[in-house]
């Protein structure tokens, strides 16, 4: 198999927390192996605190990994030297942020970020050509007419339009992979779909890969080719989107799916539901991190951390109980989840 666009090997990030005399370690991300192919949209799904934003920031080089490494086009990031190489990487892998109201500098026109990106990363674009290139990327994200849009300040735009500016900035790098950290979760439901469609279109037209980070499984299904489900710093399940969503193997994935509001499903379901919370993983011992909330937990889950096992075609889950042939019930008995 040829080298994927981006691959991580045992990616781990710990943070020191606690007092000076009793230092503790928060395990934000533990031993994550993920791959993103060229032109692929991969969704990273999980609750807040599951470590998905930490992964985004590791890939964007805001944080350095505690252990493990990231390979971009086969080359390890840890061996990157000099400002030139670092700039080259950040132009290949830009990031789009969650809060469209905070991610553009209010003191500048919306084109500021695009102009700076061209200035820093695309020296070949001459000063005169920059205006044309700026209009091209604004046009590509649907901010039309681009010439008028380019003159606006952030406060003149709605949340959805600002998020498009975020994608325009990312496009200005001529990127190979865009990391989108919850790009729609702060937007109105009615305009989310426009941003999701935009991501699909950019993949088609510009051949960009996406790492789409979200807690909304339904939107992940809408655009992603593959899904990774994270819980408490671990990837607990991964596989082709439809396989994971239609035949979830990990009890946590099942819980996540059952929580998605879906008015097209039968009305009047008011089942009991889980009141647990994703744990803060401080100095964890061995064992499955979901066991306290898990209705199927067995003795082995207390003592041994499950690793991803192949359970279907390209479909893996980290669960001792899940089996390849005998699927867990698709609708989990939610009542069993309550006493945690």
């Amino acid at each position, binding site marked *: 198999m040829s080298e994927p666009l981006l691959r991580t090997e045992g990616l781990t990030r710990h943070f020191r927390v606690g007092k000076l005399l009793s230092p503790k370690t928060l395990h934000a991300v533990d031993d994550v192996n993920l791959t993103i192919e060229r032109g692929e949209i991969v969704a990273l799904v999980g*609750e*807040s605190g599951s470590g998905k934003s930490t992964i985004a920031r590791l890939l964007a*080089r*805001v944080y350095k990994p505690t252990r493990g490494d990231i390979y971009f086009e086969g080359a390890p990031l840890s061996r990157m030297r000099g*400002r030139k190489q670092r*700039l080259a990487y*950040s*132009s290949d892998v*830009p990031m789009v*942020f*969650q*809060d469209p109201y*905070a*991610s*553009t*500098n*209010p*003191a*500048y026109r919306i084109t500021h*970020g695009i102009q*700076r*990106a061209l200035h*820093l990363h695309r020296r070949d674009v001459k000063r005169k050509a920059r205006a044309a290139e700026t209009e091209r990327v604004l046009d590509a994200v649907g901010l039309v007419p681009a010439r008028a849009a380019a003159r606006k300040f952030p406060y003149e735009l*709605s*949340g959805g339009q600002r998020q498009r500016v*975020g994608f325009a*900035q990312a496009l200005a790098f001529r990127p190979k992979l865009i990391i989108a950290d919850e790009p729609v979760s702060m937007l*109105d*439901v*009615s*305009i*989310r*779909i426009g941003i*999701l*469609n935009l991501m699909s279109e950019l993949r088609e037209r510009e051949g960009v890969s996406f790492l789409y980070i979200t*807690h*909304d*499984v*339904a*939107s992940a*299904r*809408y655009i992603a080719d593959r899904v990774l489900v994270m819980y408490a710093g671990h990837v607990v399940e991964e596989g082709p989107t439809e396989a994971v*969503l239609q035949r979830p193997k990990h009890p946590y994935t099942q819980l*996540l*799916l*059952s*929580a*998605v*509001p*879906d*008015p*097209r499903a039968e*009305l*009047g379901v*008011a*089942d009991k*539901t*889980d*009141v647990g*919370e994703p744990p803060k993983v401080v100095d964890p011992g061995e064992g499955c991190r979901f066991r306290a909330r898990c209705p199927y937990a067995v003795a082995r889950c207390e003592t041994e951390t499950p690793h991803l096992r192949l359970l279907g075609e390209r479909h893996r889950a980290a669960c001792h109980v899940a089996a390849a042939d005998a699927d867990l019930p698709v609708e989990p008995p939610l009542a069993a989840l309550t006493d945690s």
Partner: protein
Amino acid sequence: MLLFFVILATFPGEIAPYNPQATDFLPGLGPSRAHWFGTTAYGQDVLSQVIWATRQSLLIAFAVGGLATVLAVLVGVSAAYLGGVADGTLSLLTDVLLVIPIFPLIIVIAAYEKNSGLGMLVIVLGALGWSYGARQLRSQTLSLRTRDFLESARVRGERKLYVIVCEILPTMTSLIVATFLGAALYAVLAAAGLQFIGLGDPNSQSWGTMLYWAENNEALGAGMVLWAIIPGICVAALGAAFALLNYAFDEISNPALRLRRLDRPIEGARGDAVPAVPPAPDRILEVRGLTVAYATDGDPVIAVDNVDFDVGRGEFLAIVGESGCGKSTLLYAITRLLGPPFAGEIMSGHILFQGNDLVSLDERRLRHLRWREFSVVMQSAMNALNPVLSIEAQMRDACKAHSNMSDKEIAARSREVLRLVSIDPIHLHSHPHQLSGGMRQRAMIAMALLFTPDLIIMDEPTSALDVVAQRSLMVQIKELQQRLGFAVVFVTHDMSLVGHFSDRVLVMYAAQVAELGKTRQVFAQPRHPYTRALMEAFPSIHGPNARLTGIPGSPPDLARPPAGCRFAPRCPQAMARCHEGVPPLHDVEGDLVRCVLFDEGAVTEPTLVQVS
């Protein structure tokens, strides 16, 4: 005012009638046509001296202001942005300078460097005057530091210096100007003070020096009153000019400080008698013809336009719509929480709750109803809860404010309501930041339940939560509602959320009711094109993965709503008739729909709205 001084300082030669140093006149003259402010004990013209002295005072003000601002920016911003050791050291320096009594220190230094002139004075004042501004800038930068646009700049690969100079500084212009003006003000006062006590060059021309000489010659007693008073007034006026300029700048850069009121009187709404219809016993809330407007620079913006609806006892009503369609304003109006900073006003209409018209109720009786009879759960629990008080203390405050329960009863009740929302009472002693987002919202709901109200109004209580926490909170709300029998008005932009939980749903668009009906019926057969569009706006995890389009465009600007049907510009089914006038609400099998598609049907005004 500042301009006046600047002109004086720029052209003293042209304006001043005489050479300020010339001792050509009789000493100690009173005011006269030739010498407006009289002359000094040395026979100099006071007016000319004052004018020439302006130059130096302003020079000191601007030089010190500039120097202090540069230092403050440099220290404050880099401390906050770089963090770590740099922050520690620089903050320590700032704090030390802040606690040192500056003025005596300046006197000591100035006395030591007595004859070194103006430049030294500026450097000393500047070097000691930046600490206050630096602290403000540091805290402002700290709050900016985690903002996404700075992270975006870092991810882009910008250098630190660029981020500080070109990304942080422009966003803080108003604070930097304030720092500059503050430092300039301080410089004028300090310089005048120093020169007055004889420090600095006694032969220089400045207001302080004039005061010094006037004092030495006992001007006040010797009939040369104006010699002493005029420079004093000048110092005060220049100081006031800087202070006023500071306020003006603040107001320009922060429009929220300008509070507007509607000058149009409220048309008979308040003070009107409650309409002579007996309150229906099965309804807990009746909203009739409610209209709310916001004052703006132009015409008032109608954010809620003639809205009618009821809530039955124990009913769960969902109010759905996009941002900017008036649903939050409606909610604030019902709870009478409009007013600064929500500068809206109820223009007309009635809100009948338990036999009271909330629109005309006075503040005292309103307080009595609020929380006891109806309570509110806000969108962001982190903002609604007081971060420095424990949950217990906040519950106690609420109980004390609205009842005369004993401490023991309060403690018991607090425990009880926390258990109701599945929070371990051990968290009574927790502070809001120690709870997760879901727990904070539960705590908010627990507080709303303290007095078992009949109605709870919720403004997107789940929008900051993850799907799992959101689902579990919704189930919890529904369960409590069924157990305790209170009614719920639930505002959200996410139609999919309420499908399983609400009894009826009210779809709002551009300040008006677009559709109102039983949830089952609306979800099974959405009649208004807007409702249908909302329903098709989100992907599903079941069924085929169809491509969706969302709703093109955005809700109209309520300052200029389109004539006719307000949804027509975005409507896939719009026709010429849609633009001819606002369509009435049609009753279609018990479902109210504001759409011309139902014109041919039973075109009757729905019974619901006929009250007054």
